[in-house]
């Protein structure tokens, strides 16, 4: 952003591409970081997030009863998105609870997808964007926080992740409060990540997620749409670019059947909050975008 504002460059492309599904690249990337853990049969991110999720189940009210709403809600959005890997695969609560365990307490639909493909987004100045063919989305605020502690030393498996400070900084820069947000696009490597991120942003208190997500609150027709493309769980895994580009596309009004507004019985989106998250809750970025 600084490079654009100073005039040092005119356009920046954020891009991600991977042949993760047709190669073993993703598994190798996830399995490589802790050699010592492999000795005990511990491999990669799913199990590390599952360790965090299990601890949270011990500390406050959460678990599959909460996560079903996240998995099913996002699947309903994916069913409106022809690009989503799960477009033609609806999921009921019964199917969620009957799905096989991977690393318990996560069932198969609590895990993100593995995808071949990519996504890109072009950033320029608001002035340059003014006479482009498509209406742009504007960056209102952003915040980052990187607690960086390893799972051996983490203090924030159950709250107080980087989302807390990053969210506060982004809201302060945007000059708004959570009440001004029309929809959220949250980095959702696992269902629990969505719960903990929204909890740390302050949408609800610890353990209140089950009630907050209930009755389709985040689904088409809901009061706070979350992950309207289907997200990493049900659209495709393109790291932080799945949520980020979806926020941009929604504000541009280019989302077809899943477009926020009258088409999906939701609020016309003025402001959308999106998140990215790295490691095992070790780094976090929050972006708030708005319509011009």
């Amino acid at each position, binding site marked *: 952003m600084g490079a654009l504002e100073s005039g040092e460059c005119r356009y920046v492309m954020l891009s991600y591409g991977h042949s993760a599904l047709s190669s073993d690249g993703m598994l190798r990337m996830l399995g490589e970081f802790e050699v010592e853990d492999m000795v*005990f049969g511990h491999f990669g991110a799913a199990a590390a997030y599952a*360790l965090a999720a299990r601890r949270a189940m011990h500390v406050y009210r959460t678990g599959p009863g909460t996560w079903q709403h996240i998995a099913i809600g996002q699947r309903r959005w994916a069913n409106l998105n022809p690009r989503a890997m799960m477009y033609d695969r609806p999921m009921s609560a019964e199917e969620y609870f009957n799905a096989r365990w991977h690393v318990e307490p996560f069932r198969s639909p609590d895990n993100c997808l593995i995808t071949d493909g990519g996504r890109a987004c072009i950033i320029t100045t608001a002035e340059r964007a003014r006479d482009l063919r498509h209406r742009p989305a504007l960056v209102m605020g952003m915040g980052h926080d990187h607690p960086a502690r390893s*799972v051996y030393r983490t203090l924030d498996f159950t709250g107080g992740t980087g989302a807390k400070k990053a969210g506060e900084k982004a809201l302060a820069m945007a000059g708004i409060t959570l009440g001004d947000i029309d929809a959220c696009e949250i980095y959702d490597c696992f269902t629990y990540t969505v719960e903990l991120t929204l909890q740390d942003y302050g949408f609800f208190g610890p353990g209140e997620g089950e009630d907050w997500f209930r009755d389709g609150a985040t689904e088409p027709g809901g009061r706070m749409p979350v992950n309207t493309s289907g997200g990493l769980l049900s659209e495709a895994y393109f790291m932080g670019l799945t949520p980020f580009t979806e926020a941009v596309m929604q504000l541009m009004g280019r989302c077809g059947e899943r477009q926020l507004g009258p088409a999906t019985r939701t609020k016309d989106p003025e402001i959308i909050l999106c998140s990215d998250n790295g490691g095992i809750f070790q780094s976090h970025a929050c972006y708030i975008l708005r319509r011009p």
Partner: protein
Amino acid sequence: MSEEKPTPVINADTRPFWEACRNRILKFQKCRACGHVRWPAAYLCPECHSLDTLWVPVSGKGTVFSYVVYHVAYHPGFLSDVPYVVALVDLDEGPRFLSNITGCSPDEVYCDMPVEVAWEDRSAEVTLPKFRPREA
């Protein structure tokens, strides 16, 4: 057909740890400057950055901070083990250690469960510190 499980990659930092394990002694580095007992093994103290380090034996007692049950084998060496438990054990002396819970069924494990070290030979050279339930 069973495939071999992975073995630890022993380096200058971790050699004293794994050598003690072979003798069924659980040892960690203790910072002589601030007293912090650390894991993973590291050249300097993550709390105060002091290089002044001593290896000390610990009681082998702790509690389960969190745990998961693997129903999928991500490595062929673990195919005959599923479902098995991986847990983060908070040792009484401070360090948090990732290991397996043995000696009970996965259904019986819970957060804050008292456990103690249970040694398991992986090979002639490597003995692993695993953990089993203990009386509180």
